[in-house]
């Protein structure tokens, strides 16, 4: 299972600070597609990055169960 941390507006959309996908492995592109289908509101925000093990991930990167995965909506610190 892929566990996904949700922050900011992503936490509001999912209505939880975590989500999960019942897969052992998934690409970032497929994770994004899966989440956007599961939660339509993701398509109405400005987009989001995916972080894997606390580093920004590329679209073709492969995520494995056990990786620390997070949805990173547009940041607004400072």
């Amino acid at each position: 299972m892929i566990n996904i941390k949700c922050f900011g507006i992503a936490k509001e959309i999912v209505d939880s600070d975590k989500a999960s996908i019942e897969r052992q492995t998934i690409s970032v592109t497929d994770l994004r597609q899966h989440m956007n289908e599961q939660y339509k509101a993701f398509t109405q925000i400005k987009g989001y990055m995916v972080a894997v093990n606390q580093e920004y991930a590329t679209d073709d990167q492969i995520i494995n169960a056990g990786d620390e995965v997070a949805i990173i909506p547009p940041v607004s610190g400072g």
Partner: protein
Amino acid sequence: MNNSINVIISEDALSIDQVYQNAVHESCGGICLFVGTVRNHNKGKEVTHLDFETYTPMAVKEMKKIAEQAIEKFGVQQVSIFHRSGYVGIKDIAVIIAVSSVHRDACFEACQYAIDTLKETVPIWKKEHLEDGSYWVGARP
């Protein structure tokens, strides 16, 4: 010269003096600090306060990267980056960046680079609370 980096995300009020003490160095002639405070208005609306959510371990990593890049790009001495989490009121401090350098131009450039980059890459989110609602800044088109 031994460079040093200090990076902190804090639930408590930030102390300019603490950040300054972390950055001051006897070989340096100047320190540039940027202090980001909460404005009472944004886009014509009155703001009551902010709430910062942080992905803390990744945010700390990204802040360290910024400090390292600032040292590498601008040849500065010390870089300290402190950011608040949680409730932050009007005029309160959201972020402090301090950079020391032997000559002063470098500390200005590095400090500006650090705050510009922080706003682009560090996983921290600001919820702006207005009198009639609240929203996540920058999230919607």
